[in-house]
């Protein structure tokens, strides 16, 4: 079982790398979709089924659709000779590697306070989603409402920005 989880992680990483390096944007978007699915799988492993479902629905379903739409609208598909990456490759690489080593070192060194009871709670129960629903509407109701307002603002904003200017 563990092997599958690690395999899933590795493949997700590989897809992620493809997503950032492929010249064709369409391919990049598709790779990204694969990454999203991989992460959804990770969520399932972590017994966060509701989140995995949300991830697939929203990310893969809505966001990627939007992204592919945008790609199609703006990509000059005939122009293949355009470079995918700018001049910052080497610095980005170096910096990224340095950052990664730092983070990994920190992760490995820090004594994370693992709760033994929490481990028990990771057993898959059907109560998970119920707890999320209750918490969302009782304890986190305020951020929930704010989120709604923000999304409304985003809709309006996106529409306004992308609107064609009417010729006067």
């Amino acid at each position, binding site marked *: 079982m563990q092997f599958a989880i690690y395999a899933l992680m590795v493949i997700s990483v590989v897809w992620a790398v493809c*997503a950032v390096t492929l010249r064709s944007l369409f391919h990049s978007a598709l790779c990204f979709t694969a990454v999203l699915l991989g992460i959804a799988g990770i969520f399932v492993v972590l017994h966060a089924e509701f989140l995995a479902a949300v991830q697939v629905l929203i990310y893969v379903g809505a966001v990627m659709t939007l992204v592919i739409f945008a790609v199609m609208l703006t990509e000059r598909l005939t122009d293949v000779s355009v470079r*995918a990456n700018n001049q910052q490759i080497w610095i980005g690489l170096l910096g990224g590697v340095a950052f990664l080593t730092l983070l*990994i070192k920190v992760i490995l060194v820090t004594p994370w*306070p693992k*709760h033994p009871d929490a481990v028990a709670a990771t057993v898959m129960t059907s109560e998970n989603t119920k707890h999320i629903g209750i918490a969302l509407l009782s304890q986190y109701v305020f951020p929930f409402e704010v989120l709604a307002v923000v999304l409304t603002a985003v809709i309006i*904003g996106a529409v306004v920005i992308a609107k064609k200017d009417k010729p006067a």
Partner: protein
Amino acid sequence: MIVPLEHFLIFGAIIFTIGLYGTLVRRNLIGVLISIELILNSVNVNLVAFSKATSMAPETGQIFAVFVIAMAAAAVAVGLAIVIALYRVQKTVLADEVNLLKW
């Protein structure tokens, strides 16, 4: 947990770094947006892993992650709207060529 917490965290860190590299390096603006999405996803992974391993109320992390997903979607929506508006004016989506605010 079957897999130790640290491994999930390392996985999240790797995705994060890849996403970071992508934002710095991709010429195409939509590519940059995708890379930003990668970062946000890695954050989600971290959140869930932490809440499952260290918290008495494991749904906390998930709720936070839901919010993050919502915000990420909103961000992408607005970002793409901007990209389309920009494409309409400048006829390009390459970050290199959008440098009118330089000295």
